Protein backbone atom coordinates (compact mmCIF):
# COMPACT_ATOMS: atom_id res chain seq x y z
CA UNK A 1 0.00 0.00 0.00
CA UNK A 2 1.46 3.38 -0.92
CA UNK A 3 2.22 5.74 1.93
CA UNK A 4 -0.12 8.63 2.64
CA UNK A 5 2.62 10.92 1.37
CA UNK A 6 2.65 9.18 -2.00
CA UNK A 7 -1.14 9.15 -2.15
CA UNK A 8 -1.44 12.83 -1.46
CA UNK A 9 1.51 14.40 -3.24
CA UNK A 10 2.65 12.07 -6.03
CA UNK A 11 1.03 11.79 -9.43
CA UNK A 12 0.90 8.04 -9.35
CA UNK A 13 -0.28 8.00 -12.96
CA UNK A 14 3.07 9.43 -14.04
CA UNK A 15 5.03 6.70 -12.20
CA UNK A 16 7.16 4.60 -12.41
CA UNK A 17 9.91 7.18 -12.41
CA UNK A 18 12.86 7.06 -14.79
CA UNK A 19 15.56 6.83 -12.12
CA UNK A 20 17.89 3.82 -11.95
CA UNK A 21 17.74 1.25 -9.17
CA UNK A 22 19.79 2.59 -6.26
CA UNK A 23 19.52 6.24 -7.30
CA UNK A 24 19.38 8.73 -4.43
CA UNK A 25 16.93 11.10 -6.12
CA UNK A 26 13.87 9.44 -4.63
CA UNK A 27 15.14 10.11 -1.13
CA UNK A 28 15.53 13.83 -1.83
CA UNK A 29 12.19 14.06 -3.62
CA UNK A 30 10.39 12.42 -0.72
CA UNK A 31 12.18 14.72 1.72
CA UNK A 32 10.93 17.78 -0.19
CA UNK A 33 7.38 16.45 -0.15
CA UNK A 34 7.63 15.63 3.55
CA UNK A 35 8.85 19.17 4.28
CA UNK A 36 5.91 20.63 2.36
CA UNK A 37 3.57 18.34 4.28
CA UNK A 38 5.12 19.31 7.61
CA UNK A 39 4.62 22.98 6.79
CA UNK A 40 1.00 22.29 5.80
CA UNK A 41 1.24 24.20 2.52
CA UNK A 42 -1.75 24.05 0.20
CA UNK A 43 -0.77 22.08 -2.93
CA UNK A 44 -2.45 24.70 -5.14
CA UNK A 45 -0.08 27.34 -3.75
CA UNK A 46 3.12 25.42 -4.44
CA UNK A 47 4.94 25.65 -7.75
CA UNK A 48 7.77 23.24 -8.50
CA UNK A 49 10.13 24.38 -11.23
CA UNK A 50 12.84 22.12 -12.59
CA UNK A 51 15.47 22.24 -15.32
CA UNK A 52 16.82 19.36 -17.38
CA UNK A 53 18.56 16.25 -16.12
CA UNK A 54 17.73 13.24 -13.97
CA UNK A 55 16.71 15.19 -10.88
CA UNK A 56 14.64 17.66 -12.89
CA UNK A 57 12.25 14.87 -13.84
CA UNK A 58 10.94 15.01 -10.26
CA UNK A 59 8.57 17.87 -11.10
CA UNK A 60 6.46 15.60 -13.30
CA UNK A 61 5.92 13.10 -10.49
CA UNK A 62 4.63 15.61 -7.96
CA UNK A 63 1.09 16.91 -7.64
CA UNK A 64 1.58 20.67 -7.52
CA UNK A 65 1.75 23.38 -10.17
CA UNK A 66 4.80 21.98 -11.96
CA UNK A 67 7.03 22.99 -14.82
CA UNK A 68 9.94 21.15 -16.36
CA UNK A 69 11.82 23.94 -18.17
CA UNK A 70 14.90 24.16 -20.39
CA UNK A 71 18.43 23.13 -19.43
CA UNK A 72 19.90 25.48 -16.85
CA UNK A 73 17.06 27.95 -16.84
CA UNK A 74 14.83 26.72 -14.03
CA UNK A 75 15.78 29.68 -11.82
CA UNK A 76 15.01 32.18 -14.58
CA UNK A 77 11.57 30.64 -15.18
CA UNK A 78 11.06 30.51 -11.41
CA UNK A 79 11.94 34.19 -11.12
CA UNK A 80 9.25 35.03 -13.68
CA UNK A 81 6.70 32.89 -11.84
CA UNK A 82 7.50 34.22 -8.35
CA UNK A 83 7.65 37.85 -9.45
CA UNK A 84 4.37 37.50 -11.36
CA UNK A 85 2.54 35.61 -8.60
CA UNK A 86 4.24 36.11 -5.23
CA UNK A 87 1.54 34.07 -3.47
CA UNK A 88 3.06 30.89 -4.88
CA UNK A 89 5.70 29.03 -2.88
CA UNK A 90 8.23 28.53 -5.64
CA UNK A 91 10.57 25.56 -5.22
CA UNK A 92 13.28 24.76 -7.75
CA UNK A 93 14.57 21.24 -8.26
CA UNK A 94 17.83 21.12 -10.21
CA UNK A 95 21.04 19.14 -10.57
CA UNK A 96 24.72 20.00 -10.36
CA UNK A 97 25.15 20.36 -14.12
CA UNK A 98 21.85 22.17 -14.56
CA UNK A 99 22.35 24.59 -11.68
CA UNK A 100 26.03 25.48 -11.73
CA UNK A 101 27.33 24.68 -15.21
CA UNK A 102 24.80 25.75 -17.84
CA UNK A 103 22.68 27.57 -15.25
CA UNK A 104 25.47 29.02 -13.11
CA UNK A 105 24.81 32.61 -14.07
CA UNK A 106 21.14 32.34 -13.14
CA UNK A 107 22.09 30.92 -9.74
CA UNK A 108 24.38 33.87 -9.07
CA UNK A 109 21.78 36.45 -10.04
CA UNK A 110 18.80 34.79 -8.41
CA UNK A 111 20.81 34.68 -5.18
CA UNK A 112 21.87 38.30 -5.67
CA UNK A 113 18.24 39.42 -5.96
CA UNK A 114 17.36 37.38 -2.88
CA UNK A 115 13.99 36.57 -4.44
CA UNK A 116 11.89 34.24 -2.30
CA UNK A 117 12.64 30.96 -4.08
CA UNK A 118 13.85 27.75 -2.46
CA UNK A 119 16.34 25.83 -4.56
CA UNK A 120 17.23 22.21 -3.92
CA UNK A 121 20.23 20.94 -5.88
CA UNK A 122 20.46 17.20 -6.30
CA UNK A 123 24.24 16.94 -6.49
CA UNK A 124 25.28 13.53 -7.79
CA UNK A 125 28.68 14.72 -9.07
CA UNK A 126 27.96 13.65 -12.64
CA UNK A 127 25.80 14.21 -15.73
CA UNK A 128 23.60 11.16 -15.31
CA UNK A 129 20.98 11.67 -18.02
CA UNK A 130 23.61 11.81 -20.76
CA UNK A 131 25.53 8.84 -19.43
CA UNK A 132 28.21 9.90 -16.98
CA UNK A 133 30.19 12.95 -18.08
CA UNK A 134 32.10 14.94 -15.45
CA UNK A 135 30.29 17.92 -13.98
CA UNK A 136 31.43 21.03 -12.10
CA UNK A 137 31.12 19.03 -8.87
CA UNK A 138 32.98 15.91 -9.96
CA UNK A 139 35.94 15.80 -7.56
CA UNK A 140 39.29 16.51 -9.18
CA UNK A 141 40.89 13.25 -10.24
CA UNK A 142 37.61 11.31 -10.47
CA UNK A 143 36.52 9.80 -13.73
CA UNK A 144 33.66 10.39 -16.10
CA UNK A 145 33.10 9.30 -19.69
CA UNK A 146 34.56 12.65 -20.79
CA UNK A 147 37.32 12.42 -18.18
CA UNK A 148 38.69 8.97 -19.01
CA UNK A 149 42.10 9.86 -17.50
CA UNK A 150 40.67 11.62 -14.45
CA UNK A 151 39.07 15.04 -14.11
CA UNK A 152 41.65 17.85 -14.13
CA UNK A 153 39.07 20.57 -13.32
CA UNK A 154 38.74 21.97 -9.82
CA UNK A 155 35.33 21.16 -8.39
CA UNK A 156 32.91 23.77 -7.11
CA UNK A 157 31.82 24.33 -3.53
CA UNK A 158 28.20 25.16 -4.34
CA UNK A 159 27.31 26.45 -0.88
CA UNK A 160 30.20 28.91 -0.85
CA UNK A 161 29.11 30.09 -4.27
CA UNK A 162 25.48 30.57 -3.20
CA UNK A 163 26.49 32.38 -0.03
CA UNK A 164 28.91 34.69 -1.83
CA UNK A 165 26.25 35.50 -4.43
CA UNK A 166 23.80 36.59 -1.73
CA UNK A 167 21.57 33.67 -0.74
CA UNK A 168 20.07 34.21 2.71
CA UNK A 169 19.72 30.54 3.63
CA UNK A 170 22.43 28.06 2.68
CA UNK A 171 22.62 24.45 3.82
CA UNK A 172 23.90 21.03 2.85
CA UNK A 173 22.79 17.50 3.63
CA UNK A 174 23.28 14.04 2.19
CA UNK A 175 20.84 11.31 1.24
CA UNK A 176 22.13 9.37 4.24
CA UNK A 177 20.52 12.01 6.43
CA UNK A 178 17.05 12.33 4.92
CA UNK A 179 15.68 13.92 8.09
CA UNK A 180 18.28 16.64 7.81
CA UNK A 181 17.10 17.37 4.25
CA UNK A 182 13.49 17.61 5.43
CA UNK A 183 14.38 20.11 8.15
CA UNK A 184 16.50 22.16 5.79
CA UNK A 185 13.82 22.31 3.10
CA UNK A 186 11.31 23.42 5.75
CA UNK A 187 13.63 26.17 6.92
CA UNK A 188 14.50 27.11 3.36
CA UNK A 189 10.84 27.56 2.47
CA UNK A 190 10.26 29.54 5.67
CA UNK A 191 13.14 31.90 4.85
CA UNK A 192 11.80 35.01 3.12
CA UNK A 193 14.50 35.22 0.48
CA UNK A 194 16.63 33.00 -1.70
CA UNK A 195 17.34 29.65 -0.06
CA UNK A 196 19.90 27.23 -1.39
CA UNK A 197 19.98 23.63 -0.24
CA UNK A 198 22.64 21.33 -1.61
CA UNK A 199 21.76 17.68 -1.23
CA UNK A 200 24.53 15.21 -1.90
CA UNK A 201 22.91 12.30 -3.66
CA UNK A 202 24.32 9.22 -5.32
CA UNK A 203 24.53 7.93 -8.87
CA UNK A 204 25.67 4.30 -8.60
CA UNK A 205 25.03 3.69 -12.29
CA UNK A 206 27.49 6.21 -13.70
CA UNK A 207 29.53 8.05 -11.08
CA UNK A 208 29.69 5.02 -8.81
CA UNK A 209 30.59 2.50 -11.48
CA UNK A 210 33.10 4.76 -13.22
CA UNK A 211 34.89 5.44 -9.93
CA UNK A 212 34.61 1.98 -8.33
CA UNK A 213 32.50 3.30 -5.47
CA UNK A 214 30.54 0.09 -5.06
CA UNK A 215 26.78 -0.22 -4.97
CA UNK A 216 24.13 2.10 -3.63
CA UNK A 217 24.50 0.91 -0.04
CA UNK A 218 28.28 1.35 -0.20
CA UNK A 219 27.89 4.86 -1.57
CA UNK A 220 25.36 5.89 1.07
CA UNK A 221 27.56 4.41 3.79
CA UNK A 222 30.44 6.47 2.41
CA UNK A 223 28.34 9.61 2.71
CA UNK A 224 27.71 8.75 6.36
CA UNK A 225 31.48 8.51 6.88
CA UNK A 226 32.50 11.73 5.15
CA UNK A 227 29.70 14.05 6.28
CA UNK A 228 30.53 16.13 9.36
CA UNK A 229 28.88 19.16 10.89
CA UNK A 230 30.56 22.55 11.01
CA UNK A 231 31.60 22.32 14.67
CA UNK A 232 33.20 18.90 14.28
CA UNK A 233 34.88 19.96 11.04
CA UNK A 234 36.58 22.87 12.71
CA UNK A 235 38.07 20.55 15.33
CA UNK A 236 39.67 18.35 12.67
CA UNK A 237 43.30 18.66 11.60
CA UNK A 238 44.11 19.68 8.03
CA UNK A 239 44.89 16.04 7.28
CA UNK A 240 41.63 14.76 8.78
CA UNK A 241 39.59 17.29 6.80
CA UNK A 242 40.56 15.76 3.48
CA UNK A 243 37.60 14.17 1.72
CA UNK A 244 35.12 15.42 4.33
CA UNK A 245 32.04 17.45 3.52
CA UNK A 246 30.40 19.87 5.89
CA UNK A 247 26.68 19.35 6.37
CA UNK A 248 24.09 21.38 8.23
CA UNK A 249 22.82 24.92 8.07
CA UNK A 250 25.84 26.84 6.85
CA UNK A 251 24.57 30.37 6.54
CA UNK A 252 21.54 32.42 7.51
CA UNK A 253 21.41 36.07 6.56
CA UNK A 254 18.90 38.84 6.28
CA UNK A 255 18.59 41.10 3.27
CA UNK A 256 15.68 42.77 1.49
CA UNK A 257 13.69 40.34 -0.63
CA UNK A 258 13.24 41.23 -4.31
CA UNK A 259 9.45 41.21 -4.67
CA UNK A 260 9.00 43.09 -1.39
CA UNK A 261 11.46 45.71 -2.60
CA UNK A 262 9.58 46.04 -5.88
CA UNK A 263 6.31 46.49 -4.01
CA UNK A 264 7.95 49.05 -1.73
CA UNK A 265 9.07 50.99 -4.79
CA UNK A 266 5.55 50.88 -6.23
CA UNK A 267 4.01 52.03 -2.94
CA UNK A 268 6.40 55.00 -2.86
CA UNK A 269 4.84 56.53 -6.00
Amino acid sequence: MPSQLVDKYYRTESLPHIWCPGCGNGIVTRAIVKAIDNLGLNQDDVCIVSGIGCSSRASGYLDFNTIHTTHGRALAFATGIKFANPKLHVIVITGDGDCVAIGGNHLIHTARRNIDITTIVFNNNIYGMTGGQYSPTTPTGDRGTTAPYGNIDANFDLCNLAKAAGATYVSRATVFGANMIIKQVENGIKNKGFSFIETITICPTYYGRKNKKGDSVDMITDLKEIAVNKVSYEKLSEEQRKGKIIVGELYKGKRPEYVEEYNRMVESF
Partner: protein
Amino acid sequence: MTEKIIRLMQGNEACVEGAIAAGMRFYAGYPITPSTEIAELSAAKLPRIGGKFIQMEDEIASISAIIGASLTGYKAMTATSGPGFSLKQEGIGYAAISETPCVIVNVQRGGPSTGLPTFPAQGDIMQARWGTHGDHSIIALYPSTVREIYDTTIKAFNLAEKYRTPVILLMDEVIAHMREKIEIPNIDEVEIYNRKKPKSSPSEYLPFHVREGDIVPEMVNFGEGYRFHVTGLVHSETGFPTNDHKIAENLITRLINKIQDNVEDIVEYEEYRLEDAEKVIIAYGATARSVKSAIDSLREEGCKIGMFRPITIWPVAQKQIEEMARKVKKVSVIEMNMGQYFLEIDRIAGKYTTVNQYGRVHGELITPEEIISFIKEG
Protein backbone atom coordinates in the same frame (compact mmCIF):
# COMPACT_ATOMS: atom_id res chain seq x y z
CA MET B 1 -16.62 62.12 -27.81
CA THR B 2 -13.12 61.75 -26.48
CA GLU B 3 -10.45 63.94 -27.92
CA LYS B 4 -7.95 62.44 -30.32
CA ILE B 5 -4.53 61.80 -28.83
CA ILE B 6 -1.85 62.96 -31.25
CA ARG B 7 1.74 62.28 -30.24
CA LEU B 8 5.20 62.55 -31.70
CA MET B 9 6.49 59.11 -30.93
CA GLN B 10 9.53 56.93 -31.49
CA GLY B 11 9.00 53.43 -32.88
CA ASN B 12 10.29 51.71 -29.78
CA GLU B 13 7.97 53.89 -27.67
CA ALA B 14 5.01 52.98 -29.88
CA CYS B 15 5.85 49.34 -29.27
CA VAL B 16 5.63 49.82 -25.50
CA GLU B 17 2.43 51.89 -25.77
CA GLY B 18 0.85 49.26 -28.01
CA ALA B 19 1.92 46.47 -25.67
CA ILE B 20 0.41 48.23 -22.68
CA ALA B 21 -2.81 48.87 -24.59
CA ALA B 22 -2.90 45.15 -25.43
CA GLY B 23 -2.59 44.30 -21.73
CA MET B 24 1.12 43.67 -21.34
CA ARG B 25 1.86 43.85 -17.61
CA PHE B 26 5.08 41.85 -17.42
CA TYR B 27 8.35 42.67 -19.13
CA ALA B 28 11.70 40.96 -18.69
CA GLY B 29 14.64 42.06 -20.75
CA TYR B 30 18.31 42.67 -21.19
CA PRO B 31 19.86 45.81 -22.71
CA ILE B 32 20.83 45.60 -26.36
CA THR B 33 21.03 48.15 -29.15
CA PRO B 34 18.80 49.07 -30.94
CA SER B 35 15.94 47.76 -28.79
CA THR B 36 16.97 49.17 -25.41
CA GLU B 37 14.36 51.96 -25.29
CA ILE B 38 11.67 49.28 -25.12
CA ALA B 39 13.16 48.04 -21.83
CA GLU B 40 13.72 51.57 -20.53
CA LEU B 41 10.16 52.68 -21.22
CA SER B 42 8.72 49.46 -19.82
CA ALA B 43 10.79 50.01 -16.66
CA ALA B 44 9.36 53.51 -16.30
CA LYS B 45 5.75 52.69 -17.08
CA LEU B 46 4.91 49.22 -15.82
CA PRO B 47 5.42 49.78 -12.07
CA ARG B 48 2.99 52.71 -12.27
CA ILE B 49 0.15 50.71 -13.81
CA GLY B 50 0.23 47.58 -11.70
CA GLY B 51 2.72 45.82 -13.95
CA LYS B 52 6.06 44.17 -13.39
CA PHE B 53 9.41 45.01 -14.92
CA ILE B 54 12.57 43.04 -14.32
CA GLN B 55 15.97 43.37 -15.92
CA MET B 56 17.33 39.85 -16.11
CA GLU B 57 20.96 38.73 -16.17
CA ASP B 58 20.86 37.76 -19.84
CA GLU B 59 18.71 37.23 -22.91
CA ILE B 60 17.94 33.60 -22.11
CA ALA B 61 16.84 34.47 -18.59
CA SER B 62 14.56 37.16 -20.04
CA ILE B 63 12.61 34.84 -22.29
CA SER B 64 12.51 32.21 -19.55
CA ALA B 65 11.05 34.75 -17.12
CA ILE B 66 8.31 35.89 -19.52
CA ILE B 67 7.27 32.29 -20.16
CA GLY B 68 7.07 31.75 -16.40
CA ALA B 69 5.05 34.93 -15.96
CA SER B 70 2.72 34.03 -18.81
CA LEU B 71 1.95 30.71 -17.12
CA THR B 72 0.67 32.65 -14.10
CA GLY B 73 -1.70 34.62 -16.35
CA TYR B 74 0.27 37.69 -17.39
CA LYS B 75 0.58 39.05 -20.89
CA ALA B 76 4.35 39.17 -21.13
CA MET B 77 6.94 40.53 -23.53
CA THR B 78 10.67 40.76 -24.06
CA ALA B 79 12.58 42.76 -26.64
CA THR B 80 15.99 42.20 -28.12
CA SER B 81 18.12 42.52 -31.21
CA GLY B 82 20.40 40.38 -33.41
CA PRO B 83 22.67 38.44 -31.05
CA GLY B 84 20.00 38.46 -28.34
CA PHE B 85 17.46 37.02 -30.75
CA SER B 86 19.85 34.14 -31.43
CA LEU B 87 20.09 33.48 -27.69
CA LYS B 88 16.33 33.42 -27.29
CA GLN B 89 15.73 30.70 -29.84
CA GLU B 90 15.59 27.77 -27.40
CA GLY B 91 13.09 29.67 -25.28
CA ILE B 92 10.95 30.39 -28.35
CA GLY B 93 10.84 26.65 -29.03
CA TYR B 94 9.84 26.02 -25.42
CA ALA B 95 7.01 28.55 -25.69
CA ALA B 96 5.93 26.89 -28.95
CA ILE B 97 5.75 23.32 -27.62
CA SER B 98 4.32 24.33 -24.24
CA GLU B 99 1.83 26.65 -26.04
CA THR B 100 2.67 29.58 -23.79
CA PRO B 101 1.59 32.94 -25.21
CA CYS B 102 4.33 35.59 -25.28
CA VAL B 103 5.67 38.34 -27.52
CA ILE B 104 9.31 38.61 -28.58
CA VAL B 105 10.35 41.85 -30.22
CA ASN B 106 13.44 41.77 -32.40
CA VAL B 107 14.65 45.17 -33.51
CA GLN B 108 16.97 43.92 -36.21
CA ARG B 109 20.53 45.10 -36.79
CA GLY B 110 23.30 44.08 -39.14
CA GLY B 111 24.75 40.62 -38.56
CA PRO B 112 25.98 37.95 -38.25
CA SER B 113 27.39 38.14 -34.73
CA THR B 114 27.89 41.63 -33.32
CA GLY B 115 27.73 42.87 -36.91
CA LEU B 116 26.53 46.44 -37.35
CA PRO B 117 24.82 47.17 -34.03
CA THR B 118 23.52 50.64 -34.85
CA PHE B 119 22.47 50.17 -38.46
CA PRO B 120 19.36 48.68 -40.02
CA ALA B 121 19.17 45.25 -41.59
CA GLN B 122 16.42 42.79 -42.43
CA GLY B 123 18.55 39.72 -42.00
CA ASP B 124 16.49 37.82 -39.43
CA ILE B 125 13.59 36.85 -41.68
CA MET B 126 14.59 33.20 -41.82
CA GLN B 127 15.76 33.08 -38.22
CA ALA B 128 12.32 34.27 -37.16
CA ARG B 129 10.86 31.37 -39.13
CA TRP B 130 13.32 28.61 -38.36
CA GLY B 131 15.54 29.88 -35.55
CA THR B 132 14.46 27.36 -32.96
CA HIS B 133 15.15 23.72 -33.72
CA GLY B 134 12.56 21.23 -34.79
CA ASP B 135 9.38 21.46 -36.82
CA HIS B 136 7.05 24.21 -35.75
CA SER B 137 4.97 27.06 -37.06
CA ILE B 138 5.50 30.62 -36.03
CA ILE B 139 3.77 33.96 -36.30
CA ALA B 140 5.96 36.97 -37.14
CA LEU B 141 4.70 40.49 -37.85
CA TYR B 142 6.57 43.31 -39.55
CA PRO B 143 5.41 46.92 -39.19
CA SER B 144 6.44 49.69 -41.54
CA THR B 145 5.55 52.89 -39.68
CA VAL B 146 5.52 54.07 -36.08
CA ARG B 147 1.72 53.93 -36.01
CA GLU B 148 1.83 50.45 -37.42
CA ILE B 149 4.26 49.39 -34.70
CA TYR B 150 1.58 50.40 -32.20
CA ASP B 151 -1.09 48.39 -34.03
CA THR B 152 0.99 45.30 -34.78
CA THR B 153 2.22 45.10 -31.19
CA ILE B 154 -1.42 44.87 -30.10
CA LYS B 155 -2.04 42.32 -32.81
CA ALA B 156 1.01 40.33 -31.69
CA PHE B 157 -0.47 39.97 -28.20
CA ASN B 158 -3.91 39.10 -29.57
CA LEU B 159 -2.49 36.38 -31.81
CA ALA B 160 -0.23 35.04 -29.04
CA GLU B 161 -3.24 34.61 -26.75
CA LYS B 162 -5.63 33.34 -29.41
CA TYR B 163 -3.24 30.74 -30.81
CA ARG B 164 -1.28 30.09 -27.59
CA THR B 165 2.02 30.66 -29.32
CA PRO B 166 5.08 32.88 -29.20
CA VAL B 167 4.68 35.79 -31.63
CA ILE B 168 7.68 37.59 -33.04
CA LEU B 169 7.55 41.26 -33.86
CA LEU B 170 10.28 42.09 -36.34
CA MET B 171 11.22 45.74 -36.42
CA ASP B 172 13.68 47.84 -38.37
CA GLU B 173 16.23 49.92 -36.51
CA VAL B 174 15.29 53.02 -38.49
CA ILE B 175 11.62 52.84 -37.58
CA ALA B 176 12.39 51.85 -33.99
CA HIS B 177 14.44 55.02 -33.61
CA MET B 178 12.45 57.30 -35.89
CA ARG B 179 9.87 59.72 -34.55
CA GLU B 180 6.59 60.15 -36.37
CA LYS B 181 3.37 61.90 -35.57
CA ILE B 182 0.80 59.28 -34.69
CA GLU B 183 -2.77 59.24 -33.56
CA ILE B 184 -3.27 56.88 -30.68
CA PRO B 185 -6.63 55.16 -30.95
CA ASN B 186 -9.09 55.37 -28.12
CA ILE B 187 -8.51 52.32 -25.94
CA ASP B 188 -12.22 51.38 -26.14
CA GLU B 189 -11.91 51.07 -29.90
CA VAL B 190 -8.97 48.68 -29.75
CA GLU B 191 -9.83 45.02 -30.09
CA ILE B 192 -8.17 43.03 -27.32
CA TYR B 193 -8.16 39.25 -27.12
CA ASN B 194 -7.98 37.77 -23.64
CA ARG B 195 -7.25 34.18 -22.66
CA LYS B 196 -10.42 32.12 -22.36
CA LYS B 197 -11.19 30.76 -18.92
CA PRO B 198 -11.56 26.97 -18.75
CA LYS B 199 -14.93 25.28 -18.87
CA SER B 200 -13.52 22.17 -17.20
CA SER B 201 -13.27 21.66 -13.47
CA PRO B 202 -9.82 20.93 -11.99
CA SER B 203 -10.57 17.20 -11.73
CA GLU B 204 -11.51 16.82 -15.41
CA TYR B 205 -9.01 19.32 -16.79
CA LEU B 206 -6.68 18.01 -19.49
CA PRO B 207 -4.16 20.79 -20.06
CA PHE B 208 -3.40 19.94 -23.68
CA HIS B 209 -6.75 18.70 -24.90
CA VAL B 210 -8.44 20.75 -27.62
CA ARG B 211 -12.20 20.84 -27.26
CA GLU B 212 -14.34 20.33 -30.33
CA GLY B 213 -14.60 23.64 -32.15
CA ASP B 214 -11.66 25.24 -30.35
CA ILE B 215 -8.29 26.07 -31.90
CA VAL B 216 -6.14 25.55 -28.81
CA PRO B 217 -6.40 23.88 -25.41
CA GLU B 218 -8.01 25.84 -22.58
CA MET B 219 -5.35 27.60 -20.60
CA VAL B 220 -5.45 28.00 -16.87
CA ASN B 221 -2.93 29.78 -14.73
CA PHE B 222 -0.57 28.40 -12.14
CA GLY B 223 -2.07 28.90 -8.71
CA GLU B 224 -5.74 28.65 -9.70
CA GLY B 225 -6.36 25.19 -8.33
CA TYR B 226 -5.66 23.19 -11.50
CA ARG B 227 -2.42 21.42 -10.75
CA PHE B 228 -1.03 20.62 -14.17
CA HIS B 229 2.41 19.88 -15.61
CA VAL B 230 4.24 21.84 -18.29
CA THR B 231 7.24 20.41 -20.12
CA GLY B 232 9.31 21.02 -23.23
CA LEU B 233 9.24 17.28 -23.87
CA VAL B 234 6.70 15.82 -26.23
CA HIS B 235 3.63 15.28 -24.09
CA SER B 236 0.16 13.81 -24.28
CA GLU B 237 -3.05 15.71 -23.54
CA THR B 238 -2.33 15.15 -19.86
CA GLY B 239 0.81 17.29 -20.11
CA PHE B 240 3.05 14.41 -19.06
CA PRO B 241 5.96 13.39 -21.28
CA THR B 242 5.69 10.41 -23.59
CA ASN B 243 7.78 8.68 -26.23
CA ASP B 244 4.70 7.37 -28.01
CA HIS B 245 5.35 7.99 -31.71
CA LYS B 246 1.70 8.49 -32.59
CA ILE B 247 1.20 11.06 -29.83
CA ALA B 248 4.42 12.81 -30.86
CA GLU B 249 3.28 13.14 -34.45
CA ASN B 250 -0.20 14.28 -33.45
CA LEU B 251 1.21 16.96 -31.16
CA ILE B 252 3.68 18.43 -33.63
CA THR B 253 1.11 18.30 -36.43
CA ARG B 254 -1.46 20.04 -34.24
CA LEU B 255 1.04 22.78 -33.29
CA ILE B 256 1.78 23.42 -36.96
CA ASN B 257 -1.82 23.23 -38.12
CA LYS B 258 -3.28 25.54 -35.51
CA ILE B 259 -1.41 28.29 -37.36
CA GLN B 260 -1.39 26.94 -40.93
CA ASP B 261 -5.13 26.23 -40.88
CA ASN B 262 -5.84 29.79 -39.81
CA VAL B 263 -3.60 31.70 -42.18
CA GLU B 264 -6.54 33.78 -43.44
CA ASP B 265 -7.24 35.00 -39.90
CA ILE B 266 -3.59 35.75 -39.19
CA VAL B 267 -2.37 37.21 -42.45
CA GLU B 268 -2.39 40.97 -42.94
CA TYR B 269 -0.91 42.85 -45.89
CA GLU B 270 -1.07 46.07 -47.84
CA GLU B 271 -1.58 46.31 -51.59
CA TYR B 272 -0.31 49.49 -53.18
CA ARG B 273 -1.26 50.52 -56.72
CA LEU B 274 -1.69 46.91 -57.77
CA GLU B 275 -4.92 47.29 -59.81
CA ASP B 276 -3.41 47.21 -63.30
CA ALA B 277 0.18 46.34 -62.29
CA GLU B 278 2.32 44.27 -64.63
CA LYS B 279 5.25 44.35 -62.25
CA VAL B 280 5.07 43.90 -58.51
CA ILE B 281 7.57 44.64 -55.81
CA ILE B 282 7.33 42.71 -52.57
CA ALA B 283 8.86 44.60 -49.66
CA TYR B 284 8.29 45.00 -45.94
CA GLY B 285 9.25 47.27 -43.07
CA ALA B 286 11.34 50.34 -43.82
CA THR B 287 12.24 49.13 -47.30
CA ALA B 288 8.58 49.24 -48.29
CA ARG B 289 8.60 53.00 -47.69
CA SER B 290 11.37 53.49 -50.24
CA VAL B 291 9.51 51.16 -52.57
CA LYS B 292 6.33 53.23 -52.32
CA SER B 293 8.22 56.35 -53.28
CA ALA B 294 9.92 54.52 -56.17
CA ILE B 295 6.55 53.22 -57.41
CA ASP B 296 5.07 56.73 -57.42
CA SER B 297 7.99 57.95 -59.57
CA LEU B 298 7.84 54.95 -61.90
CA ARG B 299 4.08 55.35 -62.29
CA GLU B 300 4.62 58.96 -63.35
CA GLU B 301 6.79 57.61 -66.13
CA GLY B 302 4.01 55.25 -67.19
CA CYS B 303 5.35 52.04 -65.64
CA LYS B 304 2.53 49.80 -64.47
CA ILE B 305 3.98 48.78 -61.14
CA GLY B 306 2.66 48.19 -57.63
CA MET B 307 3.65 46.77 -54.28
CA PHE B 308 2.52 43.91 -52.12
CA ARG B 309 3.62 44.54 -48.54
CA PRO B 310 3.27 41.67 -46.10
CA ILE B 311 2.62 42.86 -42.53
CA THR B 312 2.38 39.24 -41.45
CA ILE B 313 5.72 37.83 -42.57
CA TRP B 314 5.06 34.35 -41.14
CA PRO B 315 2.90 32.53 -41.99
CA VAL B 316 3.33 33.76 -45.54
CA ALA B 317 0.31 35.09 -47.47
CA GLN B 318 0.61 32.20 -49.90
CA LYS B 319 -2.85 32.43 -51.48
CA GLN B 320 -2.66 36.18 -52.14
CA ILE B 321 0.87 35.98 -53.53
CA GLU B 322 -0.12 33.11 -55.80
CA GLU B 323 -3.13 34.99 -57.16
CA MET B 324 -1.02 38.04 -57.80
CA ALA B 325 1.82 36.08 -59.41
CA ARG B 326 -0.62 34.62 -61.96
CA LYS B 327 -1.49 38.10 -63.18
CA VAL B 328 1.88 39.85 -63.44
CA LYS B 329 4.96 39.63 -65.64
CA LYS B 330 7.49 39.99 -62.89
CA VAL B 331 7.80 39.95 -59.09
CA SER B 332 10.78 41.67 -57.48
CA VAL B 333 11.64 41.11 -53.84
CA ILE B 334 13.50 44.06 -52.38
CA GLU B 335 14.93 43.60 -48.90
CA MET B 336 17.88 44.55 -46.70
CA ASN B 337 19.42 41.08 -46.85
CA MET B 338 20.90 38.84 -49.53
CA GLY B 339 17.65 37.18 -50.49
CA GLN B 340 15.84 35.61 -47.54
CA TYR B 341 12.16 36.38 -48.20
CA PHE B 342 12.99 35.97 -51.87
CA LEU B 343 13.42 32.23 -51.23
CA GLU B 344 9.86 32.01 -49.95
CA ILE B 345 8.37 34.26 -52.64
CA ASP B 346 10.21 32.41 -55.39
CA ARG B 347 8.85 29.12 -54.01
CA ILE B 348 5.30 30.46 -54.30
CA ALA B 349 5.41 32.83 -57.29
CA GLY B 350 8.21 31.21 -59.31
CA LYS B 351 5.76 28.70 -60.82
CA TYR B 352 3.75 31.48 -62.44
CA THR B 353 6.11 34.34 -63.21
CA THR B 354 9.68 35.59 -63.08
CA VAL B 355 10.94 36.40 -59.59
CA ASN B 356 14.09 38.37 -58.90
CA GLN B 357 15.67 40.02 -55.91
CA TYR B 358 17.51 43.18 -54.96
CA GLY B 359 19.25 43.22 -51.59
CA ARG B 360 21.79 45.33 -49.73
CA VAL B 361 23.63 44.50 -46.52
CA HIS B 362 25.75 47.61 -46.01
CA GLY B 363 23.78 49.04 -43.12
CA GLU B 364 22.04 51.77 -45.09
CA LEU B 365 18.48 51.98 -46.30
CA ILE B 366 17.76 51.03 -49.87
CA THR B 367 16.91 54.30 -51.62
CA PRO B 368 14.05 54.94 -54.07
CA GLU B 369 16.68 55.79 -56.72
CA GLU B 370 18.33 52.39 -56.36
CA ILE B 371 14.95 50.73 -56.68
CA ILE B 372 14.03 52.73 -59.78
CA SER B 373 17.33 51.76 -61.47
CA PHE B 374 16.89 48.12 -60.50
CA ILE B 375 13.36 47.99 -61.94
CA LYS B 376 14.38 49.80 -65.12
CA GLU B 377 17.39 47.56 -65.68
CA GLY B 378 15.46 44.39 -64.83
